[in-house]
């Protein structure tokens, strides 16, 4: 290690998926600026190295080699599961800690192939059952339409949800379909949902598609409930969908509206960038805090030392006080279900 701590940030910063990658750059920047303003970590300044991977596996291997060549000690990222999986072997070889705010693929933690991987978001394996259980047990609905966006985040979630329905045997999947992300109009699929007689739509995917679907559902006067995932539990969703968002349920990290750090982070973003933060901002903020904390506590950037701190010591973050299990998943980021009421997400009691 030199006289600075090199902190890598990787994710899509250009192209169609930039909106998922750029917020974590902002999050890292806010945390690091703050840390540096307070004299750095153990006397060392933190230097941020930002690299774009456009969410493509082939680019992300280049991104990873670039970061490794540049001597980063830890990496915040990547954003998409596919890009992350492709990049992991390169970091693993060099013993670099990677923490993602958004890659939910089960494989990353559960396969045991990537001991250097951590994340502040819950894996798909935890999320799908949460959505389904909520729809069946809490809402008391049994005819379920499962819709996903065919992506590497939404589709596995949806598949997990379907499996969970079949396992519990309580509900019935009346429709299971993928929609084309970015398509201009979803009225056909909405009509199909109506035709299927579903009482609830369980959606796996991100908020742009979700908001288009709920908007059309409202236009077509459908009263079907809408239960969705973490990718939708985002304030942008409410902004964009407006009235149509009312009554939409979404799974999300435990309620942290009372968490002062979350409010502080949001305010800091507003002050620095003049707008509300975007997707995965809190998770990225938390990951940055957690990694820098581990470096400080361990006074080292060696993977083994960092892992020990991450797994044993709780750290306060916008997503709660967290530490990590042996697979790398965050403990303490359990799910809450939220519902949109009067233009904001509130926890369903």
């Amino acid at each position: 290690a030199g006289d600075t701590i090199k902190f890598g940030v990787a994710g899509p910063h250009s192209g169609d998926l930039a909106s998922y990658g750029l917020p974590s750059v902002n999050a890292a920047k806010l945390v690091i600026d703050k840390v540096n303003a307070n004299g750095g970590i153990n006397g060392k300044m933190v230097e941020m190295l930002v690299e774009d991977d456009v969410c493509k596996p082939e680019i992300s291997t280049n991104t990873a080699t670039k970061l490794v060549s540049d001597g980063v000690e830890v990496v915040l990222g990547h954003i998409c599961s596919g890009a992350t999986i492709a990049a992991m072997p390169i970091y693993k070889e060099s013993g670099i800690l990677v923490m993602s705010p958004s890659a939910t693929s089960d494989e990353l933690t559960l396969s045991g192939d990537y001991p250097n991987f951590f994340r502040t978001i819950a894996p798909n394996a935890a999320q799908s059952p949460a959505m389904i259980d909520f729809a069946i047990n809490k809402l008391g609905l049994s005819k379920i339409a499962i819709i996903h966006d065919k992506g590497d985040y939404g589709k596995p979630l949806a598949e997990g949800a379907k499996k969970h329905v079949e396992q519990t045997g309580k509900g019935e999947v009346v429709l299971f379909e993928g929609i084309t992300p970015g398509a201009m109009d979803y009225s056909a699929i909405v009509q199909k949902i109506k035709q299927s007689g579903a009482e609830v739509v369980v959606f796996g995917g991100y908020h742009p598609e979700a908001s288009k679907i709920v908007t059309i559902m409202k236009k077509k006067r459908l009263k079907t409930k809408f239960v969705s995932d973490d990718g939708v539990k985002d304030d942008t969703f409410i902004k964009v969908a407006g009235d149509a968002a009312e009554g939409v349920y979404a799974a999300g990290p435990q309620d942290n509206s009372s968490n002062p750090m979350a409010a502080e982070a949001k305010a800091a973003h507003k002050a620095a960038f003049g707008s509300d933060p975007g997707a995965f901002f809190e998770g990225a903020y938390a990951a940055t805090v957690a990694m820098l904390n581990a470096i400080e506590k361990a006074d080292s950037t060696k993977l083994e030392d960092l892992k020990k701190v991450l797994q044993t010591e709780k750290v306060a973050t916008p997503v709660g006080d967290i530490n990590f299990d042996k697979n790398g998943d965050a403990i303490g980021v359990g799910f809450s279900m939220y519902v949109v009421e009067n233009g904001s997400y509130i926890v369903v009691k």
Partner: protein
Amino acid sequence: MVSLKELKKGLLTSLWFVFLTFPIIVIKVDPIQRTVIWRWQNALYMALGTFGIYLLVKYYQHRKENQPSRPKNTEQTESFLHGILQKPLQRKILVGVVATIAVLFPHFFSTYQTNVMTTALMYVVLGLGLNIVVGLAGLLDLGFVAFYAVGAYTYALLNLHFGLGFWTVLPIGGLIAAMFGVLLGFPVLRLRGDYLAIVTLGFGEIIRLILENWGKFSKGPSGISNISRPGFLGMEFSLEQSILYTYYLMILFVIITIFVVNRLQDSRLGRAWIALREDEIACQAMGIDKRKTKLVAFSLGAFWAGIVGVMFAAKTTFINPASFTFLESAIILSIVVLGGMGSIIGVVFGALILILMPEYLRALSEYRMLAFGGILVCMMIFRPQGLISNIRRTYRFEKKPQ
């Protein structure tokens, strides 16, 4: 120097751009908080920026006009390269220099550079493959990435299910891709020009969508991970060694590809492709079987894409359908056109420039892709024929004294 009239025109131009970009770069609204931010400084930057660029362009034009020899100069550099390629000795020296650089490259540059260079070399081969279809045979293919995907998935799946190694699958991947080439070729042979373009684009999308949706077969959007890297007599490589090995493998592939494409181009078949590109009807009237010739072009092009696909899967060790979008086809096509259609060296340069550029533009961070798009436009404007055009060796007949 710049005249008053030109200054006035420059002023008008920059005013026009200020007007043009006004809503997008000056106003920023927050529809929820209902606030408007007026970023007037941006308008000023835009005005100064465009005025500066305008003066630069004018200056360049003046220089070009005042030096009538200048166009000739570029002509000369081109024929200079041309000349080198024509003369056996100089060609050998050039090849030697390039080869030395290629061999020594990884020893002077970091693993990252080597890795990026490997990627660029893969695109060289892709470009050369597409060059057969577009550059030589004149068939506009906007779905070339489909064959690339076929190659990659062939390896990934065979590796996953049957544990087949890189070297075993390499030819299989190429052949299956070639087969797909024929499959695509059949229905679209009747189509001309841009109708062909859209159908190939559609075909590319169909392949990607099937890979995405047919989860049981392809593991869907989650992709396939832990694909074996290329092996060598069962040796175990570290990551760094593996990158090095892959690099040299790619160099070898590039050499083979250039060799083969060069031979094809100089053959009876190559002539038929070029003729087909020039005038289909005349071509048929000369006894060339349009269908067969086109199909061969399609399948040969696809073959290379398949080979590189296998290489790609082995290099990244993970693939998913997101890597095979239309944009990828567009980039490969840009390589061919920018390089100079039908010119092998052109394509090599095109690939190196277009693939290395975004990597080296990383320094511009978020302006990276903006610059990439802008540079693409500029390069086309300044070299509409491609970087290196018309270096095709033509047949000559020198009458020997009897």
